[in-house]
């Protein structure tokens, strides 16, 4: 009966990533990810914001030649938002797959970014997908969708948030192979900043130094130090002709804190690295 209903096809519209995204491997994460994909294991990426988790997934989707479906999770994300829903077209109902269902049908990589932000009752729909069943139940259609071999579930979360509400349940986390990410070593990070931001090696080195100084303030007034992404933003402003100190103030100091005392300290640190 459900087959008779019209369905809007999303899965076939999912495109592959054509050109290689820039990603600088830090350790053995590429090999581990490929291995997990071969063995059909889901992957959990842990790490602070802006350290390259999303870029890594894009890079792996390109490498594995699979389409990528990314869902930024938020606290109102419902099961229907992931699995799909009926829409009314004329006098008929049309089933539209949600991103997760579409990804399963297409054998894509499905990346649920910041999974802890989603409601607890929503995250359980991924459980049968994340163990050996590899199934997605679409209860409204009475359909049980078996994931093809190429489908892979990737979730990410940032363990740096101290809030007790932002915890990932053990029953969820214990289904995943966990890859830990951190800001890369200074030399590697400088390479990334130079390449992505389009600045010379010395400027990149100074930006990374500044990043290191702000990371020292984690827990002493800052929740997080400057991420690689913020450093790249500052570098891009510098490459566009903004004075380095002004670029760092705007892209790093003001982005990290609203507290006037803290931004004062951050300005001091910017001034220590750039004159």
């Amino acid at each position, binding site marked *: 009966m459900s087959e008779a209903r019209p369905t809007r096809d999303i899965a076939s519209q999912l495109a592959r990533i054509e050109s290689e995204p820039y990603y600088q491997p830090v350790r053995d994460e590429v090999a581990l990810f490929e291995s997990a994909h071969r063995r059909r294991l889901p992957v959990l990426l842990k790490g602070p914001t802006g350290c390259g988790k999303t870029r890594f997934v894009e890079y792996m989707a390109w490498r594995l030649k699979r389409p990528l479906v990314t869902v930024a999770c938020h606290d*109102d994300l*419902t*099961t*229907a*938002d992931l699995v799909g*829903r*009926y829409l*009314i077209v004329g*006098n008929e*109902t049309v089933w539209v797959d949600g991103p997760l269902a579409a990804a399963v049908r297409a054998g894509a990589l499905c990346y649920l970014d910041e999974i802890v932000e989603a409601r607890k009752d929503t995250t359980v729909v991924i459980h049968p997908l994340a163990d050996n069943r590899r199934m997605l139940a679409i209860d409204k259609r009475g359909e049980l969708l078996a994931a093809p071999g190429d489908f892979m579930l990737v979730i990410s979360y940032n363990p740096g948030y101290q*809030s*007790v*509400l932002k915890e990932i349940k053990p029953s969820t986390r214990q289904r995943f192979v966990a890859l830990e990410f951190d800001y890369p*070593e*200074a*030399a590697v990070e400088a390479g990334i900043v130079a390449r992505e931001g389009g600045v010379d090696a010395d400027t990149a080195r*100074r930006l990374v*130094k500044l990043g290191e*100084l*702000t990371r*020292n*303030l984690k827990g*002493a*007034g800052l929740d997080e130090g400057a991420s690689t992404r913020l450093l790249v933003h500052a570098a891009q402003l510098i490459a566009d002709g903004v004075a380095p*100190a002004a670029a760092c103030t705007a892209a790093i100091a003001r982005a990290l804190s609203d507290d006037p*005392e*803290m931004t*004062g*300290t951050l300005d*001091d*640190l*910017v*001034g*220590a*690295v*750039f*004159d």
Partner: protein
Amino acid sequence: MNRKLFSDELEQRLDELLFASHSHRSAKNIADGLEKLSREEQERALHWTGVAAQSYAEVGYLVAALAPKALARLDPAGFEAWVLAGLDAYDRHGGQAAMAQLRAIEAFAAARERAPAAARLADQEARLARFLQGLSGRPLGLAEGSVAHTDTETVFLPAQLAEYATAEDNRRLYKATAALLWAQTRYGTFGCAEVDVEARLARWPDRARALRWFAALEAVRLEAALAAELPGLAAEMARLRGPWPEALREAERRLGRADAAVSQTLTFLDECMAGAAEPPPLPHAGAIDLAAALGARATRLARETEVVRKALSALKGFGGRKGAGAASPAVNLDGGKFQISLDGEAVALPPDAQAAARSLVQDLGALPPECLTPAGPGAWQPLPPEWNEHAEEDALTGHREPQHRYDEWDWRRRAYRRGWCHLFEVALPPGDPDYVAKVSLRNTAAIRRIRRRFEMLRGEDRLLGRQPEGEELDLDALVEAAGDRAAGAEPEARLYSRRIRSERSLAAMFMVDMSGSTKGWVNDAEREALVMLCEALEALGDAYAIYGFSGWTRTRCDIYPVKRFDETYDAAVRGRIAAIAAKDYTRMGVAIRHLTRLLAAQPARHKLLVTLSDGRPDDFGDEYRGHYGIEDTRRALQEAHGRGVRSYCVTIDRHGADYLPRLYGPAHYTVIDDAGKLPLKVADIYRRLTS
């Protein structure tokens, strides 16, 4: 009215103000001194004498005695600041310090004249401390000291800097001085395993001069080292100090390189000491206190070596194999990150050991070999007590280190008394385990009513129909739209239903008066009220905590946790509710400050502090009673408001209407005339406040 007061009148006024003193000194001489002043000045002197005498009569005496001299030297605002500085010294360091501070009128006046351009450490402290934390990554304390120097654990800076003409430059000077002192700890001024600085300096009989030269030469070397890593900071230092003095030109040539080491400084120091010249003064180079630095460093090295060693021996396969030489790990320092490999397998250190290892390398350049030897068969042992800052408790003398210190507002001074109140969290002994059950039994009907009322308030999901989008179809809307379409009317486009969460994000803190005056039926009423409240809040699901407060003077402010936020309403909590008893006094400000801090740490969006009390703030002695206590409490409530905490007071003091509006604001309190009604009313009040 404007007539000057004569000596005998002044003497009488002084006797009244200083009456509390046990000293039998006559006020006659002081009165003679004050007689020469104008009436306005006389009144000012008498007023501040009275304020000071409230804290300590001897300080009052001194203020009165020195007032003629101080008034001659200082303007009215300056005079007030002079007294406050003396009182501040009394609060922090006691009577002797206050006397010394007050007597130094000339120094105080001179500092005040420079003040517009001066930078004060008190204003810069927080920002500088974070700056140092940013630079070093390991906590480096910041404290006031007469001479700028560091013992490698703490950077000491003078209370005020007025070297330059503008406040901004003096602020920069603070930063430069602090950074250079940090650089001493970062770039090996105090030596390492190979370089024994102490031995090299010990050969000079004039040690003070050698240390002065050492500090100046190190400033040159360290600035060059900083320039490589933090060019902006080095450039700012260079702008501040101007070109190097002639006497340091040669030093700049030889030491002004990023790769110069302390051994080169020491070699050059020998040449400088051979001459007769004194080192030129540098504005931003602090002194070097080698003994203090080496002492603090030795303690830290021992502590950190032990931490790393214990962590290593707790690791798999290391501690177990005693004396097995093959198990010694290889340490690989890579860009500040530690890779420790054991039998070819990389192992990770726990975060505290990571930090200790990083700190060790900062001090020594490498991990000392002794931390790589097994700590022996023993298990992980706690650190000795001298390394644990909070473990001190001297039971014999009854002296306890306070768990927290809080400022208190002194309305007469219009200033805070820093760290004035000593706060302790004291555990309540378990009370009658059946108490709560008995109360519940007696009030079964009321509790059932309260629970039902509060369950209705509970935040639950609601289904919203007729939405433009949503996860479900709204069948009613759909049928209507089909009908409309068939009839030729424009169909409704909002055909979906959506589930929304109406979440109560609220944390409530109940602060229960346990002062002596609650003894008897007030205490019973409070306890019964808490039983009702707990029932109501359990039905509602809000986060809540209950703390009792009482105390005896500022040095013993006690807080009794009844239920913390992370505890459930279990037998232990019920026992503690039963154990709530009348204790001593009601010093409210400090209790509000402490509980606000606990409440502000809660993740809830709305925070509510509810006080159950039977009267105005009060404490042993006259000081806190009356205006002082009310003003301090009011200030504490304002601070709480600033931290996003809303406060409400439920009191059974019939005179409450006299002072409560000033404390809580006109609509933020309830006076209950009969304590017996408290239990039934409190839950209702809470419901009104939060729905």
